[in-house]
């Protein structure tokens, strides 16, 4: 809005940055609000039949089974590096014995959930955004509506549920393989006794650590699938729009994973 009295132009200049900031905040609020509504609608179809079991199972296999190689490899290497690094670090304090503890603690609490989720964000977030985005720009989502099928129920709800259920499974696998990676380096390179390493691991393994990691995984699974679906669902403008949606889905879900990781850690372990 412009004030049309003398000197108003200068006032306008001062106010403009404020207005720009206001616009940015408003549009951010709008986006968050729309995203929340989208998530709520997606979830609401869980309790409103029909539920598309076939699609749910297909997505579950896609996320849980086909992500196994990527997640396994990254988890093993992370455990290996962790053992190596913590050994060199602890050697300075003659505390090499703590390697097993550090590995199991960091893997189950942090690295398992976060690294597995980041890998899945790259795979699944991108593929959901690309698939749903292509469906949007080629009118397939509109076609669903004309074919007596609610697109949210058909496309989004099964994916959200599959993400929430598949991620804890993947993280459990990542936890086990990460610890095994540490054990592998510990016993072959760092001179630990195999039974001793495993015993130290089991002694320090706490149910709460694993459970918190799995809860994180479920949240991250939701974030990944939600961002993938949302970016695809709202994509505009042909192949370029779908490309942009894919990028946004991966970047946004990666950032959100790290942000939620902090928030959840704070909730679980802050005293």
């Amino acid at each position, binding site marked *: 809005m412009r004030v049309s009295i003398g000197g108003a132009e200068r006032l306008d200049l001062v106010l403009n940055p404020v207005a720009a900031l206001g616009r940015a905040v408003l549009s951010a609020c709008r986006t968050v609000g729309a995203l929340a509504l989208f998530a709520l609608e997606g979830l609401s179809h869980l309790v409103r039949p029909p539920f598309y079991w076939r699609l749910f199972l297909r997505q579950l296999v896609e996320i849980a089974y086909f992500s196994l190689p990527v997640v396994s490899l990254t988890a093993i290497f992370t455990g290996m590096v962790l053992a190596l690094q913590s050994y060199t670090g602890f050697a300075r304090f003659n505390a090499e014995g703590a390697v097993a503890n550090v590995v199991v603690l960091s893997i189950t609490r942090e690295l398992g959930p976060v690294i597995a989720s980041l890998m899945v964000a790259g795979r699944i977030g991108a593929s959901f955004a690309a*698939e749903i985005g292509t*469906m949007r720009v*080629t*009118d*397939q989502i*509109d*076609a669903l*509506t*004309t*074919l*007596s*099928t*609610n697109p949210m129920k058909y496309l989004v709800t099964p994916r959200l549920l599959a993400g929430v259920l598949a991620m804890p499974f993947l993280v459990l696998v990542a936890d086990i393989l990460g610890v095994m990676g540490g054990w592998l380096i510990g016993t072959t390179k760092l001179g630990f006794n195999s039974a001793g390493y495993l015993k130290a691991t089991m002694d320090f393994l706490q149910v709460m650590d694993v459970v918190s990691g799995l809860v994180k995984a479920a949240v991250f699974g939701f974030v990944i699938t939600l961002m993938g679906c949302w970016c695809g669902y709202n994509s505009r403008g042909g192949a370029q729009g779908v490309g942009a949606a894919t990028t946004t889905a991966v970047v946004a879900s990666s950032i959100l994973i790290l942000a939620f990781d902090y928030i959840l850690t704070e909730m679980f372990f802050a005293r």
Partner: protein
Amino acid sequence: MSGDTPKIRLRGLSKAFGEKRVLDGVDLDIRAGHGMVILGGSGSGKSVTIKCILGLITPDAGTIEIDGQDILAMSRRDREALNDRIGMLFQNGALFDSLPVWENVCFKLLAQKRITRAKARDKAAEVLAQVGLAASVGDLAPSELSGGMQKRVGLARAIAAQPDIIFFDEPTTGLDPIMGAVIDGLIVDVVKRLGATAVSITHDMASARRIGDDAAMLHRGKIVWTGSAAVLGDTGNAMVDQFARGEREGPIQMELRR
């Protein structure tokens, strides 16, 4: 339906995308059980009009009535129930590329649980035969089909559930002339046999005369002419006649040149 209430009645339908006014007060009556052809230049808003009626685009202003009921004021449930009786052929086919052709064709019947998956293949073969495709096409993926074949599968999908109102967005574009005539015949047959109301968009005048009882011309966001499809090319309206005959010189060209 009584002969008086039009099947579909549009009043003052307006839609703008950003600055661009696409529809600017469209008034149109579509008779029940008849074929209506909507003509208009590329980008004149024909597809947008249809998408408004289908509820895929929310108009900025105006009313849309189907069987005398204002569909913009309807509850979501009523709206979905109405959609169950409507079929649509999208301009680009819009086939689901994650599903084989037979599942595409029977999608609506399956969604409404009017057919079992076991029976869907045979049903699909039956409908595919109507649009001139062999049953073996049913097992292909949409990406394995030519453009014209995709169009015909889209057509099969639109008519499979025997809807009450069917929209055809350029049903014969991309087909060879003989197949185009076959599809036109099919559309006429659907209207006659099912008593359905068919609303078609086409740029092909021969096709328009075959499938349309009535015709309307959309230009600059308004309906500028309505009349019988039979007289297209000789309507006395300079704009429509120019369009129907595909002449370079005339009122439409003059406007575009500005």
